[in-house]
């Protein structure tokens, strides 16, 4: 019974997703699907929050599902985070899909099952469950990306996402297979034990680490394996873009932390001379710089947000590198950053959806021209989330960057921090550009003028994210304590 209680977030989400599918098959009304999925996701998140407060240490028999599923505070944190992100995507979908005549209920079932997969990734302590969760998450995301069947752009984006995603999964899996061959274990703790005993110099282990890093970098969409991201983000319906940017990215980072800190958490693998940190540091520098430079040249706001999500993956990687010397503090800063990034990005996409309507979507900067004067109520949230993504106080974006940079400085990564700081200054350019177009430009004569849509769901998503951006930006310390308690320790 305590085990069922500890597994309750999975059970609530799983049964909820099945109920939503049944409602889709037998129900006559379509309108309630978004509301239903949001309720399921919030119920899951609240169950995880309840377990957090009750304390997992009071529950016995949790080792019955270990190492397949590790029910610890890291898992609970990600369950809450992933449910929040998916709920924001579901609310955005509740307004976007009917407006663009895409209102088919399977979107919500896909979304819920993909979230189940992401939760499984964050909970897994074995390469097998890690892979199964990853596939469940990715397959749902591929299908959601391809949801606009009549649109060649959506199909093209989904095709690129699918092909590169499967390629990355195959590389990751070959790394898993070699790691199993070298250590004889597929559970992360067992692998770590063998590596500590001295197998870490085995060339097969080194090869597997390289392959696994390539796969992970693909999944978190960092440079040089980011090529699919802008295309998939631009082609996908905006709620699916929200989902990819927020939930899939958080799931990928959960996977990265679990693998690198648990399986490769021994002293040598985490050292600067012979481990993964210098590789990731190089990738972080490359990711931030390339993404920020390219993002400034975009004409489409959706593509700009795609490059922005790549740049944020770079800042997050700085935090992951810093776990090498300060695992608790840097790990917590990564978790907090993911939370701040989730609410800012989901809010930005919801506000972007709100700015346009059918046939008059806001896609490019030009579409946003003058909207601040014509429709101040929808322009304000978009401006606000852009400022949070740029990291301007008093929004959560500021503290998220602050905590990551502080962890990096205290671990002695001065050069890396300076590069990250310069990049966040560079990145402010294209976020501020959104504000310039909205408030200081007028649309060209004869250009199509965007008309905001009306939807209670999208407004709810915007308000919820705005409240979280403000609250976390003004009083981050309680949430940071939660993140500190959730951070993984190596080995």
């Amino acid at each position, binding site marked *: 019974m305590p085990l069922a209680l500890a597994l309750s977030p999975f059970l609530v989400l799983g049964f909820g997703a099945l109920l939503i599918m049944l409602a889709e098959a037998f129900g006559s009304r379509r309108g309630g699907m978004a509301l239903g999925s949001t309720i399921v996701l919030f119920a899951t998140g609240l169950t995880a929050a309840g377990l957090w407060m009750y304390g997992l240490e009071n529950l016995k028999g949790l080792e019955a599902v270990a190492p397949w599923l590790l029910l610890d505070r890291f898992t609970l944190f990600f369950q809450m985070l992933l449910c929040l992100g998916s709920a924001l995507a579901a609310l955005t979908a509740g307004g976007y899909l009917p407006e663009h005549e895409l209102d088919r209920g399977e979107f919500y079932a896909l979304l819920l099952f993909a979230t189940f997969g992401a939760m499984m990734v964050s909970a897994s302590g074995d390469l097998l469950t890690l892979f199964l969760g990853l596939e469940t998450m990715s397959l749902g995301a591929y299908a959601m990306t391809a949801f606009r069947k009549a649109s060649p752009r959506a199909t093209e984006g989904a095709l690129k996402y*699918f092909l590169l995603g499967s*390629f990355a999964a195959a590389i990751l899996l070959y790394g898993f*297979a070699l790691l199993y061959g070298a250590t004889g274990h597929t559970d992360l703790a067992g692998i770590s034990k063998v590596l500590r005993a001295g197998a870490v110099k085995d060339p097969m282990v080194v090869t597997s680490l390289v392959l696994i890093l390539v796969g992970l970098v693909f999944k978190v969409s960092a440079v040089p394996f980011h090529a699919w991201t802008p295309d998939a983000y631009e082609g996908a319906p905006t709620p699916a873009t929200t989902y990819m940017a927020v939930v899939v990215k958080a799931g990928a980072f959960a996977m990265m932390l679990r693998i690198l800190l648990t399986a490769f958490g021994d002293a040598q693998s985490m050292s600067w001379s012979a481990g993964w940190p210098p590789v990731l540091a190089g990738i972080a520098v490359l990711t931030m710089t390339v993404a920020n430079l390219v993002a400034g040249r975009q004409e489409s706001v959706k593509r700009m947000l795609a490059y922005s999500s790549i740049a944020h993956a770079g800042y997050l990687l700085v935090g992951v590198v810093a776990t090498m010397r300060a695992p608790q503090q840097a790990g917590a800063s990564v978790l907090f950053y993911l939370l701040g990034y989730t609410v800012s990005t989901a809010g930005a996409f919801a506000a972007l959806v709100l700015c346009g309507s059918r046939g008059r979507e806001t896609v490019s900067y030009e579409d946003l021209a003058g909207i601040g004067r014509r429709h101040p109520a929808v322009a304000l949230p978009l401006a606000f989330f852009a400022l949070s993504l740029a990291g301007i106080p008093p929004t959560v974006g500021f503290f998220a960057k602050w905590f990551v940079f502080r962890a990096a400085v205290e671990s002695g990564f001065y050069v890396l921090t300076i590069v990250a700081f310069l990049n966040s200054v560079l990145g402010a350019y294209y976020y501020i550009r959104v504000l310039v177009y909205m408030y200081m430009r007028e649309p060209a004569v004869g250009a199509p003028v965007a008309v905001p849509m009306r939807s209670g769901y999208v407004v709810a998503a915007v308000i919820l994210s705005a409240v979280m951006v403000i609250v976390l930006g003004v009083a981050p310390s309680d949430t940071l304590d939660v993140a500190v308690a959730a951070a993984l320790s190596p080995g």
Partner: protein
Amino acid sequence: MVPFEHYILLSAVLFTVGSVGFLVRRNVLMTLLSIEVMLNAVNLALVAFNRARPENHTGQMFAFFLIAAEAAEVAVGLAIVLSLYRLKRTVRSDEADLLKN
């Protein structure tokens, strides 16, 4: 009896063939096939490693799950390829070029 290393060598060759195929072929169906070759290289490696460590069946079990997951993945992939074919009457990835910087 075939020595264990030969299986690993074959799996490495298969994996390389698959990745090269993925990178050079422009027909999406061939690209999908290349990914399958790569995944089968993984399966072969898992089973071969398991034979070298007969104390449990972890590798074989992993391979079974992998086969099932591959089937699901191909179903989604072919659905996307079909919808590309319906719209553009082609399955060549270089003719899907609407999305650019």
